C-alpha cells in the first residue's frame, strides 16, 4: 500500500517532537501533523495572517529573528487565552479559539503550534516520584531512568539558578524546618532548585560592560522572567535559553533529514484497516487544513497520537475506534492551588539586601519543595496581568468577603479579591511571593473527557472535560496549602491569600489514556495495532505531583525505540 511516511505523528508538542527526533535518528521517515502555527520558521513569516507553505523539513528554515519578532513577551499578545499567540486555536487569530466545555469555574491552558504547550511552559523538568511508579505503573521507575537521563542530557535539564524569589522561598523553607535535598530522585520531603530545561545564565550576565541586548542574543538565560510569555533569547533557534520542543527537539529532528512537519493541519480521524481477517490496525489519518478547510487523507505504517490529554481521547472517540471504558477516563490535573504572601520592604531588605522581591525576574519558577506522597510546591513569579488574574480572579470560593475565616487558617483570606482591596494588593506586586501547589491527586474513573452529543466544531463533536477531586485529594491539597502558608509566614509575610484555584484548572493534564488500560506497556493501543500514544495521557497517574513533561518525553523516547524494534 502507498504510504506518505513510515510514521505519522499527531501533534508537535511536548511528546510528539521527541518521538519524531528519536525515530528520525533511527532512520525512520516521519511526518508530524500539527494543528497550530509554527513560530520562528521562514516558511511562515506571518504565521497568524497567511497560510504560508504546507510543510518544512529543513533546519535551515528556522529563523531566530522571526522568533524574536513573534515572541513579543507582551502578556496580552502572547498569553490571552482567546486571542493570544499561545492559545488552543487555529493560527488565524481573527477566529475564535477551539472550544472545550468546562462545566464549572475553571480554565484549560494549552497551546497549539509547533512546540505545543511547551511554548508557554515554565520548563520545570523534575522526574516522577519513584513511589508513584513502582508497583503502580505496568513498568518500573528503574525502567524509566535511562530514558530520563537521555532527555535530561538532550534538553538539557539543570538545577535552576537562585534569584530573589527562590532565595525568599529557601529562607522560609529552611526556617520552617525543611531540609535541602540534593537529588533528582526525591524519596523524602525537602527543598531544592527546580530541575529546569533552561540554559544556565551566560557568565557575562553580571558584567555591566556587556549590554542586556547583546546578552539576549548570546547563549544562556538572561533572567528576564518571560518563560511563560515565550522565550526568544539566544543566538539561534536551537540555542534559545528556554527549551520547549520547538527549540530543543524539533531542530534535532529536522537535522536527521527524516522528519517533515506540517503545521495548520488538524487531524480529525484515525483511519484503520477494515479487513476482518486481521487485527484492527491504524493505517493513516484524515486531516483538515485549518486555513483552507481542505480535507485529505495520509497513510503510514504506524500512527502516533501525541495530541495531548484532551485531543487524543477526543480523536479516539470521534474516530469511532473500539469501545474501551477507560478512553478519556482517569484524568488527573494535580488539583492546583496558589498561595501568595505580601512582605514589608524592611523584612525583604533583611533577607535579600534589597527592597523588593520583583517576582517578574528570573525563571518563572526556579525552586521547589517535594513531598512524595503529598505532591509538591514551587515559588512562582509571573507578569502583572497574569499575576492579578491568577491570584485574585481565579477562585472556586467566590469573593473573599463571603468566606468564613477560621482562626486556625494559616492564611488571612481565601477567594477572589476585587475593588479597592485588589488595587491595594497590586500596589504591592513587587513585594509579593506566590507559591503554586501541585497535588498528588489520584485517577478516578468519573474524571475525564467525553464528547458533547450535539455541539460540534469544524473537527467534530466538542470535548467536555470534568474533574471532581476526592476527599483524599482535598486533604493533600489542604496540607500543601498549609505548608506553603507556613513557609511564607516564616519568611516574614505580613498578609497571605490562598486563592483556592478551581478544581477545573487543566494545565498539567495526565492519565486519560492510561498505560495498562488503553495502551500496553510500550504505549501501543490494545485494541488498534500500529497505533501508539506519546503524550501525558498514557501516564498511569499524576506521577505523584511533579510536573509531567519530562516523564512524557522519557516515555516518548522509549516508545520510539519500541516502535522501531517492533515494526521496522
Amino acid at each position, binding site marked *: 500500500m502507498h504510504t506518505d511516511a513510515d510514521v505519522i505523528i499527531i501533534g508537535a508538542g511536548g511528546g510528539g517532537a521527541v518521538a519524531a527526533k528519536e525515530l528520525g535518528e533511527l532512520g525512520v521517515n516521519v511526518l508530524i501533523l500539527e494543528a497550530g502555527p509554527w513560530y520562528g520558521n521562514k516558511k511562515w513569516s506571518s504565521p497568524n495572517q497567511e497560510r504560508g507553505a504546507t510543510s518544512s523539513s529543513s533546519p535551515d528554515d528556522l529563523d531566530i529573528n522571526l522568533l524574536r519578532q513573534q515572541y513579543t513577551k507582551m502578556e496580552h499578545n502572547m498569553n490571552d487565552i482567546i486571542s493570544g499567540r499561545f492559545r488552543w486555536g487555529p493560527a488565524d487569530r*481573527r477566529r475564535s479559539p477551539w472550544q472545550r466545555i468546562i462545566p464549572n469555574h475553571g480554565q484549560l491552558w494549552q497551546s497549539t503550534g509547533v512546540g505545543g504547550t511547551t511554548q508557554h511552559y515554565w520548563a520545570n523538568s523534575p522526574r516522577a516520584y519513584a513511589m508513584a511508579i513502582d508497583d503502580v505503573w505496568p513498568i518500573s521507575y528503574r525502567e524509566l531512568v535511562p530514558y530520563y537521563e537521555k532527555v535530561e542530557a538532550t534538553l538539557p535539564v539543570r*538545577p535552576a539558578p537562585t534569584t530573589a524569589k527562590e532565595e525568599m522561598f529557601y529562607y522560609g523553607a529552611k526556617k520552617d524546618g525543611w531540609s535541602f535535598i540534593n537529588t533528582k530522585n526525591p524519596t523524602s520531603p525537602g527543598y531544592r532548585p527546580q530541575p529546569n530545561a533552561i540554559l544556565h545564565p551566560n557568565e557575562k550576565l553580571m558584567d555591566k560592560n556587556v549590554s542586556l541586548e547583546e546578552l539576549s542574543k548570546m547563549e544562556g538565560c538572561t533572567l528576564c522572567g518571560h518563560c511563560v510569555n515565550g522565550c526568544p533569547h539566544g543566538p539561534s533557534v536551537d540555542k534559545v535559553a528556554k527549551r520547549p520542543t520547538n527549540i530543543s527537539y524539533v531542530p534535532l529532528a529536522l537535522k536527521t533529514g527524516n522528519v517533515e512537519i506540517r503545521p495548520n493541519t488538524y487531524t480529525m480521524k484515525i483511519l484503520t484497516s477494515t479487513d476482518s481477517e486481521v487485527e484492527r490496525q491504524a493505517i493513516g489519518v484524515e486531516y483538515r487544513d485549518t486555513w483552507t478547510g481542505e480535507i485529505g487523507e495520509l497513510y503510514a505504517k504506524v500512527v502516533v497520537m501525541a495530541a495531548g490529554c484532551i485531543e487524543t481521547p477526543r480523536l479516539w472517540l470521534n474516530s469511532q475506534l473500539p469501545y474501551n471504558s477507560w478512553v478519556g477516563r482517569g484524568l488527573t490535573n494535580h488539583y492546583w492551588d496558589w498561595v501568595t504572601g505580601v512582605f514589608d520592604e524592611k523584612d525583604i531588605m533583611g533577607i535579600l539586601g534589597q527592597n523588593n522581591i520583583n517576582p517578574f525576574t528570573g525563571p518563572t519558577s526556579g525552586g521547589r519543595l517535594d513531598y512524595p506522597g503529598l505532591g509538591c510546591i514551587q515559588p512562582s513569579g509571573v*507578569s502583572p496581568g497574569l499575576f492579578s488574574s491568577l491570584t485574585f480572579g481565579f477562585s472556586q470560593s467566590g469573593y473573599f468577603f463571603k468566606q468564613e475565616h477560621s482562626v486556625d487558617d494559616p492564611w488571612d483570606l481565601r477567594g477572589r479579591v476585587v475593588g479597592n482591596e485588589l488595587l491595594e494588593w497590586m500596589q504591592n506586586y513587587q513585594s509579593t511571593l506566590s507559591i503554586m501547589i501541585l497535588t498528588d491527586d489520584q485517577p478516578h474513573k468519573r474524571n475525564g473527557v467525553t464528547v458533547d452529543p450535539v455541539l460540534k466544531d469544524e473537527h467534530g463533536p466538542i470535548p467536555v472535560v470534568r474533574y471532581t477531586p476526592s476527599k483524599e485529594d482535598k486533604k493533600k491539597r489542604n496540607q500543601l496549602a498549609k505548608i506553603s502558608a507556613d513557609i511564607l509566614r516564616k519568611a516574614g509575610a505580613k498578609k497571605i491569600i490562598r486563592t483556592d484555584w478551581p478544581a477545573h484548572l487543566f494545565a498539567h493534564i495526565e492519565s486519560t489514556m492510561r498505560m495498562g488500560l488503553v495502551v500496553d506497556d510500550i504505549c501501543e493501543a490494545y485494541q488498534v495495532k500500529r497505533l501508539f500514544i506519546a503524550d501525558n495521557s498514557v501516564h498511569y497517574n499524576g506521577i505523584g505531583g511533579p510536573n509531567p513533561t519530562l516523564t512524557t518525553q522519557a516515555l516518548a523516547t522509549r516508545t520510539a525505540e519500541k516502535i522501531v524494534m517492533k515494526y521496522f
Partner: protein
Amino acid sequence: MNNTIDDSGSTSHKKGTFITEMKNTVANFVSENHSASPLSRMEQLPMQIGKKSLSQTRATFMAFVDVMIPSTFGALDLRLDDYVIWTLDHYISVQGNFGMDSIQLSSATAGMLDAAAKQLIFSGKVKKELNYSIYPEGGSFASLSFEDRLEAIHLLENAQVDMDSLPLPYRNNIGYVKNIVSNLHQMVMIGYYSEWFSLGATRLAPPENRVVERPFMTWNLVNYPSPSMGYRELRGFLVKEFKD
C-alpha cells in the same frame, strides 16, 4: 448581527435546538421570559432591538468593570468594557449550517447579569437605592450599587437565582454560568494589568494589527518595568549539578 426567527413557537430546552436558540439569544439579551408569544418573537428582530441591546450591553459591562477595579484610572476609565465585550464575542464558535458561527456571548452575558440583578431587587435585599442615572441606558445590574452588584454576582454563581430565567446558553446551566463568571473576573484583571490599554486605537483591531501606541499606564502603577531583555539578578546556585 445575525438572528434567526423560529416561527415554530417552540420553547423546548432540548439540545437539538440549542444553536438556534443561542442565535436568537444574540439579539435577545433580555429574553428572561422565554415563553415566547408571537409578539415577543417579533421583538427579537435585530433591526428593532439591535441598537438598544448594544447600548444596554455596554452599560452593563461598564458597571461590571467599574466594580472590579474602581477609581480614577480604574477599569472603566481604561475601557475594559470594550475588552470584555470583544472577548465574549470571540469566545466561542460552533459548527453551523454553512461553516463556523461565532456566538456573540456579550449580550447574553449582560442579560444574565441583569436577570440576577432583577431577582436581587425583587427579593427586597438590595442594600442601597437603585440609581438609573449613572447608566441611563443600562438595565437592572447597572442600576445597583457596587456592593449590590457583587451580591448579584455572588447569588448568580451560587445558583441562588432562578436559573430558568437566565438567557441561553446560561439557562439552567450552572456549569457554564460559573465558567463565564470566573472568566469575566480574569478578563478584567488580565486586560487591565497587561499591555492592552497601551494598544490605543488598535486595541479592538484584529489581534495581528494591534500595536503599542501609548505608555504602559497600569504597569507604572504596579512598578512593573515592562518586558525586559534581562535582569542582572543572579544570586548564585544552591548546586550547579545534582549529586546523583
